[in-house]
Protein backbone atom coordinates (compact mmCIF):
# COMPACT_ATOMS: atom_id res chain seq x y z
CA UNK A 1 0.00 0.00 0.00
CA UNK A 2 1.29 3.50 -0.77
CA UNK A 3 1.45 6.51 1.51
CA UNK A 4 -0.51 7.98 3.17
CA UNK A 5 -2.62 4.81 3.13
CA UNK A 6 -0.08 2.61 4.95
CA UNK A 7 0.44 5.19 7.69
CA UNK A 8 -3.32 5.47 8.05
CA UNK A 9 -3.68 1.70 8.45
CA UNK A 10 -0.84 1.63 10.99
CA UNK A 11 -2.45 4.41 13.01
CA UNK A 12 -5.85 2.69 12.90
CA UNK A 13 -4.39 -0.60 14.17
CA UNK A 14 -2.38 1.14 16.92
CA UNK A 15 -5.31 3.37 17.79
CA UNK A 16 -7.61 0.36 18.12
CA UNK A 17 -5.06 -1.53 20.25
CA UNK A 18 -4.53 1.48 22.53
CA UNK A 19 -8.26 2.12 22.85
CA UNK A 20 -8.81 -1.55 23.74
CA UNK A 21 -6.01 -1.31 26.34
CA UNK A 22 -7.69 1.64 28.04
CA UNK A 23 -11.17 0.15 27.73
CA UNK A 24 -10.33 -3.17 29.38
CA UNK A 25 -7.85 -1.88 31.97
CA UNK A 26 -10.47 -1.12 34.63
CA UNK A 27 -11.99 -4.60 34.49
CA UNK A 28 -8.55 -6.19 34.75
CA UNK A 29 -7.52 -3.91 37.59
CA UNK A 30 -10.53 -5.15 39.55
CA UNK A 31 -9.35 -8.72 39.10
CA UNK A 32 -5.90 -7.71 40.32
CA UNK A 33 -4.19 -8.67 37.07
CA UNK A 34 -1.55 -6.07 36.18
CA UNK A 35 -2.86 -4.11 33.21
CA UNK A 36 0.51 -4.41 31.52
CA UNK A 37 -0.33 -8.05 30.78
CA UNK A 38 -3.39 -6.88 28.88
CA UNK A 39 -1.25 -4.57 26.77
CA UNK A 40 1.16 -7.44 26.08
CA UNK A 41 -1.68 -9.79 25.14
CA UNK A 42 -3.18 -7.19 22.82
CA UNK A 43 0.26 -6.70 21.27
CA UNK A 44 0.53 -10.44 20.59
CA UNK A 45 -3.00 -10.37 19.17
CA UNK A 46 -2.00 -7.57 16.83
CA UNK A 47 1.18 -9.37 15.76
CA UNK A 48 1.96 -11.40 12.67
CA UNK A 49 0.54 -14.59 14.19
CA UNK A 50 -2.53 -12.83 15.58
CA UNK A 51 -5.54 -11.01 14.20
CA UNK A 52 -3.67 -7.79 13.41
CA UNK A 53 -1.07 -9.41 11.20
CA UNK A 54 1.53 -6.72 11.92
CA UNK A 55 4.97 -8.05 10.98
CA UNK A 56 7.44 -6.66 13.54
CA UNK A 57 10.76 -8.23 14.42
CA UNK A 58 13.06 -5.23 14.57
CA UNK A 59 14.85 -5.76 17.89
CA UNK A 60 17.03 -2.65 17.52
CA UNK A 61 14.00 -0.42 17.11
CA UNK A 62 12.23 -2.23 19.96
CA UNK A 63 15.26 -1.66 22.19
CA UNK A 64 15.44 2.02 21.29
CA UNK A 65 11.72 2.70 21.75
CA UNK A 66 11.66 0.51 24.87
CA UNK A 67 14.51 2.51 26.40
CA UNK A 68 12.76 5.81 25.67
CA UNK A 69 9.55 4.47 27.21
CA UNK A 70 11.43 3.26 30.32
CA UNK A 71 13.10 6.66 30.68
CA UNK A 72 9.69 8.34 30.62
CA UNK A 73 8.17 5.84 33.08
CA UNK A 74 11.10 6.16 35.50
CA UNK A 75 10.98 9.94 35.23
CA UNK A 76 7.33 9.91 36.26
CA UNK A 77 8.21 7.50 39.11
CA UNK A 78 10.91 9.86 40.36
CA UNK A 79 8.68 12.90 40.06
CA UNK A 80 6.10 11.22 42.32
CA UNK A 81 8.50 9.79 44.90
CA UNK A 82 8.36 11.93 48.01
CA UNK A 83 11.59 12.81 49.76
CA UNK A 84 10.22 11.28 52.97
CA UNK A 85 9.63 7.89 51.26
CA UNK A 86 13.07 8.02 49.72
CA UNK A 87 14.73 8.80 53.01
CA UNK A 88 12.85 6.09 54.85
CA UNK A 89 13.40 3.37 52.30
CA UNK A 90 16.64 4.16 50.53
CA UNK A 91 18.76 1.81 52.67
CA UNK A 92 16.68 -1.38 52.35
CA UNK A 93 15.70 -0.49 48.77
CA UNK A 94 19.32 0.29 47.89
CA UNK A 95 20.53 -3.06 49.21
CA UNK A 96 17.73 -4.90 47.40
CA UNK A 97 18.54 -2.99 44.21
CA UNK A 98 22.23 -3.91 44.25
CA UNK A 99 23.11 -6.95 46.35
CA UNK A 100 19.56 -8.27 45.91
CA UNK A 101 19.65 -8.04 42.11
CA UNK A 102 23.09 -9.68 42.02
CA UNK A 103 21.92 -12.47 44.33
CA UNK A 104 18.69 -13.08 42.40
CA UNK A 105 20.61 -13.20 39.11
CA UNK A 106 23.13 -15.70 40.49
CA UNK A 107 20.55 -17.92 42.15
CA UNK A 108 18.27 -17.98 39.12
CA UNK A 109 21.24 -18.76 36.87
CA UNK A 110 22.01 -21.81 39.02
CA UNK A 111 18.36 -22.91 38.92
CA UNK A 112 18.25 -22.42 35.13
CA UNK A 113 21.43 -24.49 34.80
CA UNK A 114 19.85 -27.23 36.91
CA UNK A 115 16.86 -27.13 34.55
CA UNK A 116 19.19 -27.94 31.66
CA UNK A 117 20.16 -24.57 30.19
CA UNK A 118 23.78 -23.98 29.10
CA UNK A 119 25.73 -21.82 31.52
CA UNK A 120 25.86 -18.93 29.04
CA UNK A 121 22.06 -18.90 28.65
CA UNK A 122 21.52 -19.52 32.35
CA UNK A 123 23.70 -16.54 33.27
CA UNK A 124 22.03 -14.36 30.64
CA UNK A 125 18.58 -15.31 31.87
CA UNK A 126 19.50 -14.66 35.51
CA UNK A 127 20.86 -11.21 34.68
CA UNK A 128 17.99 -10.24 32.39
CA UNK A 129 15.15 -11.04 34.81
CA UNK A 130 16.95 -9.89 37.95
CA UNK A 131 15.25 -6.52 38.42
CA UNK A 132 11.69 -5.71 39.39
CA UNK A 133 9.65 -3.44 37.20
CA UNK A 134 8.77 0.12 38.23
CA UNK A 135 5.73 0.38 35.99
CA UNK A 136 4.26 -2.94 37.14
CA UNK A 137 5.06 -2.38 40.83
CA UNK A 138 3.53 1.12 40.77
CA UNK A 139 0.51 -0.20 38.88
CA UNK A 140 -0.29 -2.91 41.41
CA UNK A 141 0.65 -0.94 44.55
CA UNK A 142 -1.12 2.25 43.48
CA UNK A 143 -3.93 0.50 41.64
CA UNK A 144 -6.46 2.02 43.99
CA UNK A 145 -7.74 -1.29 45.35
CA UNK A 146 -5.59 -1.29 48.41
CA UNK A 147 -2.96 0.72 50.24
CA UNK A 148 -0.01 -1.30 51.46
CA UNK A 149 1.80 -0.30 54.66
CA UNK A 150 3.94 2.77 54.01
CA UNK A 151 7.40 1.33 54.78
CA UNK A 152 6.85 -1.76 52.64
CA UNK A 153 5.26 0.19 49.81
CA UNK A 154 7.95 2.83 49.55
CA UNK A 155 10.73 0.21 49.77
CA UNK A 156 9.18 -1.78 46.92
CA UNK A 157 8.61 1.33 44.82
CA UNK A 158 12.06 2.79 45.34
CA UNK A 159 13.64 -0.63 44.79
CA UNK A 160 11.83 -0.99 41.47
CA UNK A 161 13.02 2.45 40.37
CA UNK A 162 16.68 2.01 41.27
CA UNK A 163 17.33 -1.65 40.45
CA UNK A 164 17.24 -1.43 36.66
CA UNK A 165 20.80 -0.04 36.41
CA UNK A 166 22.15 -3.14 38.14
CA UNK A 167 20.23 -5.45 35.78
CA UNK A 168 21.54 -3.49 32.77
CA UNK A 169 25.14 -3.73 33.99
CA UNK A 170 24.80 -7.46 34.66
CA UNK A 171 23.12 -8.10 31.30
CA UNK A 172 25.85 -6.24 29.40
CA UNK A 173 28.47 -8.33 31.23
CA UNK A 174 26.51 -11.54 30.57
CA UNK A 175 26.18 -10.69 26.86
CA UNK A 176 29.95 -10.11 26.73
CA UNK A 177 30.51 -13.44 28.43
CA UNK A 178 28.15 -15.24 26.05
CA UNK A 179 29.53 -13.69 22.86
CA UNK A 180 33.28 -13.46 23.55
CA UNK A 181 33.68 -15.81 26.52
CA UNK A 182 35.09 -12.83 28.47
CA UNK A 183 34.81 -14.07 32.03
CA UNK A 184 32.62 -12.10 34.40
CA UNK A 185 35.32 -10.99 36.75
CA UNK A 186 35.92 -8.95 39.83
CA UNK A 187 36.10 -5.78 37.72
CA UNK A 188 32.30 -5.87 37.83
CA UNK A 189 32.46 -5.17 41.55
CA UNK A 190 34.27 -1.91 40.74
CA UNK A 191 32.22 -1.06 37.65
CA UNK A 192 28.88 -1.37 39.42
CA UNK A 193 29.45 1.27 42.13
CA UNK A 194 31.26 3.54 39.65
CA UNK A 195 28.34 3.45 37.19
CA UNK A 196 25.82 4.01 39.96
CA UNK A 197 27.79 6.92 41.43
CA UNK A 198 28.24 8.59 38.02
CA UNK A 199 24.54 8.08 37.28
CA UNK A 200 23.54 9.63 40.58
CA UNK A 201 25.88 12.62 40.14
CA UNK A 202 24.67 13.35 36.59
CA UNK A 203 21.06 12.96 37.76
CA UNK A 204 21.60 15.41 40.62
CA UNK A 205 23.27 17.91 38.28
CA UNK A 206 20.52 17.69 35.65
CA UNK A 207 17.76 17.79 38.29
CA UNK A 208 19.09 20.81 40.16
CA UNK A 209 20.07 22.52 36.90
CA UNK A 210 16.58 22.11 35.44
CA UNK A 211 14.97 23.26 38.67
CA UNK A 212 17.10 26.36 38.78
CA UNK A 213 16.46 27.16 35.11
CA UNK A 214 12.70 26.69 35.40
CA UNK A 215 12.59 28.99 38.40
CA UNK A 216 14.67 31.81 36.91
CA UNK A 217 13.53 31.66 33.28
CA UNK A 218 10.36 33.33 32.17
CA UNK A 219 8.37 30.81 30.17
CA UNK A 220 5.24 32.42 28.83
CA UNK A 221 3.33 29.28 27.81
CA UNK A 222 2.35 26.54 30.23
CA UNK A 223 2.67 23.91 27.51
CA UNK A 224 6.41 24.50 27.27
CA UNK A 225 7.09 23.43 30.87
CA UNK A 226 6.63 19.69 30.16
CA UNK A 227 8.88 20.11 27.11
CA UNK A 228 11.60 21.40 29.42
CA UNK A 229 11.17 18.53 31.88
CA UNK A 230 11.13 15.99 29.04
CA UNK A 231 14.40 17.50 27.84
CA UNK A 232 15.79 17.02 31.31
CA UNK A 233 14.74 13.33 31.30
CA UNK A 234 16.45 12.69 27.96
CA UNK A 235 19.58 14.64 28.92
CA UNK A 236 19.84 12.82 32.24
CA UNK A 237 19.81 9.46 30.47
CA UNK A 238 22.03 10.44 27.56
CA UNK A 239 24.71 12.33 29.48
CA UNK A 240 25.01 9.69 32.20
CA UNK A 241 25.23 6.84 29.69
CA UNK A 242 27.92 8.61 27.66
CA UNK A 243 29.84 9.31 30.87
CA UNK A 244 29.84 5.52 31.60
CA UNK A 245 27.24 6.00 34.30
CA UNK A 246 23.84 4.46 34.78
CA UNK A 247 21.34 6.34 32.61
CA UNK A 248 18.27 4.93 34.33
CA UNK A 249 19.49 5.89 37.80
CA UNK A 250 20.31 9.35 36.51
CA UNK A 251 16.77 9.80 35.15
CA UNK A 252 15.21 8.70 38.45
CA UNK A 253 17.46 10.97 40.53
CA UNK A 254 16.88 14.00 38.26
CA UNK A 255 13.10 13.48 38.47
CA UNK A 256 13.18 13.02 42.25
CA UNK A 257 15.10 16.31 42.60
CA UNK A 258 12.53 18.09 40.42
CA UNK A 259 9.52 16.51 42.11
CA UNK A 260 10.65 17.36 45.63
CA UNK A 261 11.50 20.99 45.05
CA UNK A 262 9.63 24.18 44.30
CA UNK A 263 8.63 24.23 40.63
CA UNK A 264 6.37 26.48 38.63
CA UNK A 265 3.42 24.75 36.94
CA UNK A 266 4.02 21.72 39.15
CA UNK A 267 0.50 20.25 39.21
CA UNK A 268 0.29 20.51 35.42
CA UNK A 269 3.72 18.91 35.01
CA UNK A 270 2.78 16.00 37.23
CA UNK A 271 -0.39 15.35 35.24
CA UNK A 272 1.39 15.56 31.88
CA UNK A 273 4.15 13.16 32.97
CA UNK A 274 1.59 10.78 34.43
CA UNK A 275 -0.15 10.69 31.05
CA UNK A 276 3.16 10.33 29.20
CA UNK A 277 4.14 7.42 31.47
CA UNK A 278 0.83 5.67 30.77
CA UNK A 279 1.17 6.29 27.05
CA UNK A 280 4.74 4.92 27.19
CA UNK A 281 3.60 1.89 29.12
CA UNK A 282 0.77 1.04 26.75
CA UNK A 283 2.89 1.60 23.61
CA UNK A 284 5.91 -0.26 24.97
CA UNK A 285 4.01 -3.36 26.04
CA UNK A 286 2.02 -3.40 22.82
CA UNK A 287 5.28 -3.20 20.89
CA UNK A 288 6.95 -5.90 22.99
CA UNK A 289 3.85 -8.03 22.46
CA UNK A 290 4.26 -7.58 18.73
CA UNK A 291 7.81 -8.97 18.99
CA UNK A 292 6.52 -12.22 20.45
CA UNK A 293 5.58 -15.18 18.29
CA UNK A 294 3.10 -17.45 20.13
CA UNK A 295 4.41 -20.42 18.12
CA UNK A 296 7.84 -19.86 19.70
CA UNK A 297 6.37 -19.55 23.18
CA UNK A 298 5.01 -23.10 23.23
CA UNK A 299 8.40 -24.90 23.15
CA UNK A 300 9.72 -22.83 26.09
CA UNK A 301 6.53 -22.90 28.15
CA UNK A 302 7.57 -25.81 30.41
CA UNK A 303 10.95 -24.35 31.35
CA UNK A 304 9.45 -20.85 31.48
CA UNK A 305 6.77 -21.92 33.92
CA UNK A 306 9.31 -23.66 36.19
CA UNK A 307 11.66 -20.68 36.09
CA UNK A 308 8.83 -18.25 36.79
CA UNK A 309 7.77 -20.30 39.82
CA UNK A 310 11.38 -20.71 40.98
CA UNK A 311 11.87 -16.95 40.78
CA UNK A 312 8.71 -16.20 42.77
CA UNK A 313 8.94 -18.99 45.35
CA UNK A 314 12.69 -19.54 45.72
CA UNK A 315 15.17 -17.05 44.33
CA UNK A 316 13.51 -13.77 45.34
CA UNK A 317 12.30 -14.88 48.80
CA UNK A 318 15.75 -16.24 49.74
CA UNK A 319 17.59 -13.15 48.53
CA UNK A 320 15.13 -10.63 49.97
CA UNK A 321 15.10 -12.37 53.36
CA UNK A 322 18.89 -12.25 53.51
CA UNK A 323 19.07 -8.62 52.33
CA UNK A 324 16.50 -7.45 54.88
CA UNK A 325 18.01 -9.36 57.83
CA UNK A 326 19.98 -6.35 59.13
CA UNK A 327 16.80 -4.23 59.25
CA UNK A 328 14.97 -6.66 61.56
CA UNK A 329 11.63 -6.22 59.82
CA UNK A 330 8.75 -8.38 61.02
CA UNK A 331 8.47 -11.58 58.98
CA UNK A 332 5.16 -10.46 57.47
CA UNK A 333 6.77 -7.42 55.89
CA UNK A 334 9.77 -9.44 54.66
CA UNK A 335 7.51 -12.11 53.15
CA UNK A 336 5.38 -9.50 51.44
CA UNK A 337 8.43 -7.71 50.01
CA UNK A 338 9.69 -11.08 48.75
CA UNK A 339 6.40 -11.74 47.06
CA UNK A 340 6.04 -8.44 45.21
CA UNK A 341 8.98 -9.01 42.89
CA UNK A 342 7.00 -8.23 39.78
CA UNK A 343 8.93 -8.40 36.54
CA UNK A 344 7.86 -6.30 33.59
CA UNK A 345 9.17 -4.42 30.62
CA UNK A 346 12.82 -4.12 31.67
CA UNK A 347 13.59 -7.84 31.28
CA UNK A 348 11.83 -7.93 27.91
CA UNK A 349 13.79 -4.89 26.71
CA UNK A 350 17.01 -6.37 28.12
CA UNK A 351 16.25 -9.63 26.34
CA UNK A 352 16.76 -7.78 23.06
CA UNK A 353 20.47 -7.24 24.02
CA UNK A 354 21.63 -10.79 23.21
CA UNK A 355 19.50 -10.84 20.03
CA UNK A 356 21.17 -7.62 18.87
CA UNK A 357 24.59 -9.06 19.77
CA UNK A 358 23.81 -11.97 17.44
CA UNK A 359 24.15 -14.66 20.10
CA UNK A 360 22.78 -17.91 18.64
CA UNK A 361 19.60 -19.11 20.34
CA UNK A 362 18.88 -15.70 21.82
CA UNK A 363 15.47 -15.39 20.17
CA UNK A 364 14.45 -18.51 22.05
CA UNK A 365 15.85 -16.90 25.20
CA UNK A 366 13.75 -13.79 24.43
CA UNK A 367 10.62 -15.91 24.47
CA UNK A 368 11.72 -17.69 27.64
CA UNK A 369 12.20 -14.32 29.37
CA UNK A 370 8.79 -13.26 28.13
CA UNK A 371 7.24 -16.35 29.70
CA UNK A 372 8.98 -15.79 33.05
CA UNK A 373 7.79 -12.17 33.11
CA UNK A 374 4.19 -13.12 32.42
CA UNK A 375 4.18 -15.82 35.11
CA UNK A 376 5.75 -13.43 37.62
CA UNK A 377 3.28 -10.60 36.90
CA UNK A 378 0.31 -12.93 36.89
CA UNK A 379 0.88 -14.75 40.17
CA UNK A 380 1.94 -11.64 42.04
CA UNK A 381 -0.79 -9.42 40.64
CA UNK A 382 -3.66 -11.80 41.29
CA UNK A 383 -2.55 -12.67 44.82
CA UNK A 384 -1.61 -9.16 45.94
CA UNK A 385 -4.89 -7.86 47.37
CA UNK A 386 -5.89 -11.03 49.30
CA UNK A 387 -2.31 -11.38 50.56
CA UNK A 388 -2.15 -7.77 51.76
CA UNK A 389 -5.36 -8.23 53.72
CA UNK A 390 -4.36 -11.61 55.09
CA UNK A 391 -0.98 -10.36 56.24
CA UNK A 392 -2.61 -7.28 57.78
CA UNK A 393 -0.40 -4.93 55.82
CA UNK A 394 -3.24 -2.84 54.43
CA UNK A 395 -3.55 0.72 55.69
CA UNK A 396 -6.73 2.75 55.61
CA UNK A 397 -6.83 4.70 52.41
CA UNK A 398 -8.46 8.13 52.47
CA UNK A 399 -11.02 8.21 49.64
CA UNK A 400 -9.81 10.11 46.61
CA UNK A 401 -11.71 13.31 45.95
CA UNK A 402 -13.84 13.25 42.81
CA UNK A 403 -12.65 16.81 42.08
CA UNK A 404 -9.14 18.01 41.22
CA UNK A 405 -8.66 21.65 42.10
CA UNK A 406 -5.12 22.69 41.37
CA UNK A 407 -3.18 25.86 41.11
CA UNK A 408 -0.92 26.11 38.09
CA UNK A 409 1.29 29.16 38.16
CA UNK A 410 3.80 30.11 35.50
CA UNK A 411 5.98 31.68 38.19
CA UNK A 412 6.84 30.38 41.60
CA UNK A 413 4.08 31.55 43.95
CA UNK A 414 3.93 31.55 47.72
CA UNK A 415 0.98 29.29 48.51
CA UNK A 416 -0.74 26.09 47.50
CA UNK A 417 -4.12 24.38 47.40
CA UNK A 418 -4.31 21.25 49.54
CA UNK A 419 -7.14 18.77 49.90
CA UNK A 420 -8.16 17.04 53.13
CA UNK A 421 -10.60 14.22 53.79
CA UNK A 422 -12.72 14.84 56.86
CA UNK A 423 -12.67 11.89 59.23
CA UNK A 424 -14.75 11.83 62.45
CA UNK A 425 -11.51 11.71 64.48
CA UNK A 426 -10.33 15.10 63.21
CA UNK A 427 -10.63 18.21 65.35
CA UNK A 428 -12.52 20.09 62.64
CA UNK A 429 -15.20 17.45 62.07
CA UNK A 430 -18.58 18.78 63.25
CA UNK A 431 -17.54 22.43 63.55
CA UNK A 432 -18.60 25.42 61.46
CA UNK A 433 -15.96 26.97 59.24
CA UNK A 434 -16.35 30.28 61.09
CA UNK A 435 -15.27 28.51 64.30
CA UNK A 436 -11.91 27.56 62.80
CA UNK A 437 -9.39 30.35 63.27
CA UNK A 438 -7.46 29.98 60.07
CA UNK A 439 -4.11 31.75 59.92
CA UNK A 440 -4.37 35.21 58.35
CA UNK A 441 -3.26 34.17 54.85
CA UNK A 442 -4.99 30.77 54.62
CA UNK A 443 -8.63 29.75 54.08
CA UNK A 444 -10.94 26.91 53.13
CA UNK A 445 -12.14 27.58 49.59
CA UNK A 446 -14.32 24.65 48.52
CA UNK A 447 -16.04 21.62 50.01
CA UNK A 448 -17.00 18.52 48.06
CA UNK A 449 -19.84 16.62 49.74
CA UNK A 450 -20.95 13.58 47.77
CA UNK A 451 -21.85 14.89 44.34
CA UNK A 452 -22.25 18.46 45.52
CA UNK A 453 -19.81 21.33 45.40
CA UNK A 454 -20.28 23.73 48.33
CA UNK A 455 -18.81 27.20 48.53
CA UNK A 456 -16.81 27.48 51.75
CA UNK A 457 -18.94 29.82 53.86
CA UNK A 458 -18.68 30.56 57.56
CA UNK A 459 -21.93 28.80 58.45
CA UNK A 460 -21.01 25.55 56.66
CA UNK A 461 -20.47 22.71 59.13
CA UNK A 462 -17.79 20.20 58.14
CA UNK A 463 -19.12 16.65 58.03
CA UNK A 464 -17.38 13.29 58.02
CA UNK A 465 -16.71 12.23 54.44
CA UNK A 466 -16.29 15.80 53.10
CA UNK A 467 -13.29 16.77 51.01
CA UNK A 468 -12.11 20.26 51.92
CA UNK A 469 -9.85 22.36 49.72
CA UNK A 470 -7.67 24.73 51.68
CA UNK A 471 -5.50 27.45 50.28
CA UNK A 472 -2.52 27.75 52.57
CA UNK A 473 0.91 29.28 52.88
CA UNK A 474 3.67 26.70 53.39
CA UNK A 475 4.41 28.12 56.86
CA UNK A 476 0.77 27.54 57.93
CA UNK A 477 0.79 23.88 56.95
CA UNK A 478 1.69 22.54 60.46
CA UNK A 479 -1.39 24.18 62.00
CA UNK A 480 -3.69 23.27 59.11
CA UNK A 481 -2.60 19.62 59.19
CA UNK A 482 -2.90 19.42 62.96
CA UNK A 483 -6.58 20.27 62.52
CA UNK A 484 -7.32 18.65 59.14
CA UNK A 485 -5.00 15.62 59.19
CA UNK A 486 -2.74 14.59 56.38
CA UNK A 487 -3.21 16.11 52.97
CA UNK A 488 -4.30 13.64 50.31
CA UNK A 489 -3.25 13.56 46.69
CA UNK A 490 -5.70 14.77 44.08
Amino acid at each position, binding site marked *: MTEPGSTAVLLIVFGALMAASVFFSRALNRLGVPVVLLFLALGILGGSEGLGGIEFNNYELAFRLGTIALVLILFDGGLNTAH*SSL*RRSILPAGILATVGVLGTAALLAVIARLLGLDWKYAILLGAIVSSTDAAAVFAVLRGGNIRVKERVRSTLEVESCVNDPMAVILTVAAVQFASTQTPIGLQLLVEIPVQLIIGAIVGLAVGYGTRWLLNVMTISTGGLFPVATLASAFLAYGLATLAYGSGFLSVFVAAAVLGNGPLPYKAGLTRVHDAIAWFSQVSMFLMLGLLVYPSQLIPVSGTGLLLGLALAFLARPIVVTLCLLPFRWPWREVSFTSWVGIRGAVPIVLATFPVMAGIPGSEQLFHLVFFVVVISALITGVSLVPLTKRMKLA*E*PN*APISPVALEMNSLRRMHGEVRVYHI*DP*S*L*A*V*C*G*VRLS*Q*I*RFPEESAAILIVRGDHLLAARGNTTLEAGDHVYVFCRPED*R*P*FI*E*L*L*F*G*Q*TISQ
Partner: protein
Amino acid sequence: MKLCDIVSRDAIVAGLQSSTRDEVVAELVDALVRAGKVASNIREEIIASVLERERKGSTGFGKGVAIPHVKQKGVKGMVAAVGVSESGIDFNALDKQPVYSVFLLISPAEDPEQHLRAMEVIFKNLSQDNFRRFLRQATQVDDVWTLLTDADDQQLPA
Protein backbone atom coordinates in the same frame (compact mmCIF):
# COMPACT_ATOMS: atom_id res chain seq x y z
CA MET B 1 -9.06 29.52 77.60
CA LYS B 2 -5.90 28.87 79.62
CA LEU B 3 -3.45 25.98 79.60
CA CYS B 4 -3.91 25.37 83.32
CA ASP B 5 -7.67 25.00 82.77
CA ILE B 6 -6.98 22.19 80.31
CA VAL B 7 -3.93 20.38 81.69
CA SER B 8 -4.27 18.22 84.79
CA ARG B 9 -1.32 18.87 87.11
CA ASP B 10 -1.45 15.25 88.23
CA ALA B 11 -1.13 14.06 84.68
CA ILE B 12 2.20 15.71 83.92
CA VAL B 13 4.93 13.16 83.23
CA ALA B 14 8.26 15.01 83.29
CA GLY B 15 10.31 11.96 82.38
CA LEU B 16 8.47 9.73 79.91
CA GLN B 17 9.56 6.10 80.20
CA SER B 18 8.21 4.99 76.83
CA SER B 19 10.17 5.22 73.63
CA THR B 20 7.57 4.66 70.92
CA ARG B 21 4.57 6.75 69.89
CA ASP B 22 2.02 4.10 70.84
CA GLU B 23 3.60 3.51 74.24
CA VAL B 24 3.78 7.24 74.98
CA VAL B 25 0.07 7.66 74.21
CA ALA B 26 -0.72 4.75 76.57
CA GLU B 27 1.57 6.20 79.28
CA LEU B 28 -0.18 9.58 79.13
CA VAL B 29 -3.67 8.04 79.12
CA ASP B 30 -2.62 6.03 82.19
CA ALA B 31 -1.47 9.25 83.85
CA LEU B 32 -4.95 10.71 83.27
CA VAL B 33 -6.57 7.54 84.65
CA ARG B 34 -4.39 7.75 87.76
CA ALA B 35 -5.28 11.43 88.12
CA GLY B 36 -8.94 10.41 88.12
CA LYS B 37 -9.66 12.44 84.99
CA VAL B 38 -10.49 9.48 82.77
CA ALA B 39 -12.45 6.37 83.77
CA SER B 40 -10.29 3.24 83.64
CA ASN B 41 -12.96 1.30 81.73
CA ILE B 42 -12.53 3.51 78.65
CA ARG B 43 -8.71 3.49 78.72
CA GLU B 44 -8.33 1.05 75.82
CA GLU B 45 -10.98 2.81 73.78
CA ILE B 46 -9.25 6.17 74.18
CA ILE B 47 -5.82 4.81 73.27
CA ALA B 48 -7.27 3.18 70.14
CA SER B 49 -9.04 6.41 69.13
CA VAL B 50 -5.93 8.54 69.63
CA LEU B 51 -3.86 6.15 67.51
CA GLU B 52 -6.61 6.04 64.90
CA ARG B 53 -6.37 9.84 64.65
CA GLU B 54 -2.57 9.57 64.29
CA ARG B 55 -3.11 7.30 61.31
CA LYS B 56 -5.01 10.11 59.57
CA GLY B 57 -1.86 12.19 59.78
CA SER B 58 0.70 12.73 62.50
CA THR B 59 -0.06 15.33 65.14
CA GLY B 60 3.68 15.89 65.44
CA PHE B 61 3.66 19.17 63.55
CA GLY B 62 7.39 19.78 63.73
CA LYS B 63 10.04 21.31 66.00
CA GLY B 64 9.94 18.41 68.46
CA VAL B 65 6.33 18.71 69.66
CA ALA B 66 3.10 16.77 69.15
CA ILE B 67 -0.54 17.19 70.18
CA PRO B 68 -2.26 13.80 69.94
CA HIS B 69 -5.96 14.36 70.53
CA VAL B 70 -9.37 12.77 70.50
CA LYS B 71 -13.04 13.65 70.87
CA GLN B 72 -14.46 10.76 72.83
CA LYS B 73 -17.92 9.71 73.91
CA GLY B 74 -18.21 8.95 77.62
CA VAL B 75 -15.67 11.60 78.64
CA LYS B 76 -17.13 14.14 81.07
CA GLY B 77 -14.86 17.13 80.64
CA MET B 78 -11.96 18.27 78.55
CA VAL B 79 -8.56 17.33 79.94
CA ALA B 80 -4.95 17.13 78.86
CA ALA B 81 -1.79 15.35 79.96
CA VAL B 82 1.73 16.57 79.26
CA GLY B 83 4.75 14.35 78.71
CA VAL B 84 8.42 15.24 78.28
CA SER B 85 10.85 12.76 76.80
CA GLU B 86 14.59 13.07 77.15
CA SER B 87 15.50 10.69 74.35
CA GLY B 88 12.86 11.74 71.79
CA ILE B 89 10.07 9.73 70.20
CA ASP B 90 9.46 8.88 66.56
CA PHE B 91 6.03 10.41 65.93
CA ASN B 92 6.36 10.37 62.15
CA ALA B 93 6.31 14.15 62.52
CA LEU B 94 5.87 16.58 59.63
CA ASP B 95 9.58 17.51 59.76
CA LYS B 96 10.56 13.84 60.38
CA GLN B 97 12.40 14.88 63.57
CA PRO B 98 11.94 13.21 66.98
CA VAL B 99 9.31 14.58 69.35
CA TYR B 100 10.33 15.62 72.88
CA SER B 101 7.16 17.25 74.26
CA VAL B 102 3.68 15.78 73.98
CA PHE B 103 0.30 17.29 74.91
CA LEU B 104 -2.43 14.64 74.91
CA LEU B 105 -5.87 16.27 74.69
CA ILE B 106 -9.12 14.43 75.38
CA SER B 107 -12.48 16.14 74.94
CA PRO B 108 -16.13 15.10 75.11
CA ALA B 109 -17.46 14.21 71.65
CA GLU B 110 -20.41 16.55 72.16
CA ASP B 111 -18.36 19.75 72.21
CA PRO B 112 -16.13 19.95 69.12
CA GLU B 113 -15.79 23.73 69.38
CA GLN B 114 -14.22 23.62 72.85
CA HIS B 115 -11.89 20.91 71.59
CA LEU B 116 -10.84 23.15 68.72
CA ARG B 117 -10.27 26.15 71.04
CA ALA B 118 -8.05 24.02 73.31
CA MET B 119 -6.05 22.81 70.31
CA GLU B 120 -5.49 26.40 69.24
CA VAL B 121 -4.31 27.44 72.69
CA ILE B 122 -1.87 24.54 72.96
CA PHE B 123 -0.63 25.10 69.39
CA LYS B 124 -0.13 28.83 69.99
CA ASN B 125 2.03 28.17 73.04
CA LEU B 126 4.00 25.36 71.44
CA SER B 127 4.73 27.66 68.50
CA GLN B 128 6.75 29.92 70.83
CA ASP B 129 10.47 29.07 70.75
CA ASN B 130 10.99 29.85 74.43
CA PHE B 131 8.00 27.80 75.58
CA ARG B 132 9.23 24.79 73.61
CA ARG B 133 12.78 25.16 74.87
CA PHE B 134 11.82 25.41 78.55
CA LEU B 135 9.34 22.55 78.23
CA ARG B 136 11.98 20.28 76.74
CA GLN B 137 14.40 21.17 79.54
CA ALA B 138 11.84 20.49 82.29
CA THR B 139 12.80 17.59 84.56
CA GLN B 140 10.19 18.03 87.32
CA VAL B 141 6.41 18.26 87.30
CA ASP B 142 6.74 21.65 89.02
CA ASP B 143 8.93 22.95 86.18
CA VAL B 144 6.22 22.12 83.67
CA TRP B 145 3.43 23.51 85.81
CA THR B 146 5.29 26.78 86.41
CA LEU B 147 5.89 27.09 82.68
CA LEU B 148 2.17 26.60 81.99
CA THR B 149 1.09 29.15 84.58
CA ASP B 150 3.67 31.68 83.35
CA ALA B 151 2.44 31.19 79.79
CA ASP B 152 -1.15 31.72 80.95
CA ASP B 153 -0.17 34.90 82.77
CA GLN B 154 1.42 36.29 79.65
CA GLN B 155 -1.53 35.35 77.47
CA LEU B 156 -3.49 38.27 76.11
CA PRO B 157 -7.22 38.03 76.71
CA ALA B 158 -8.89 36.51 73.62
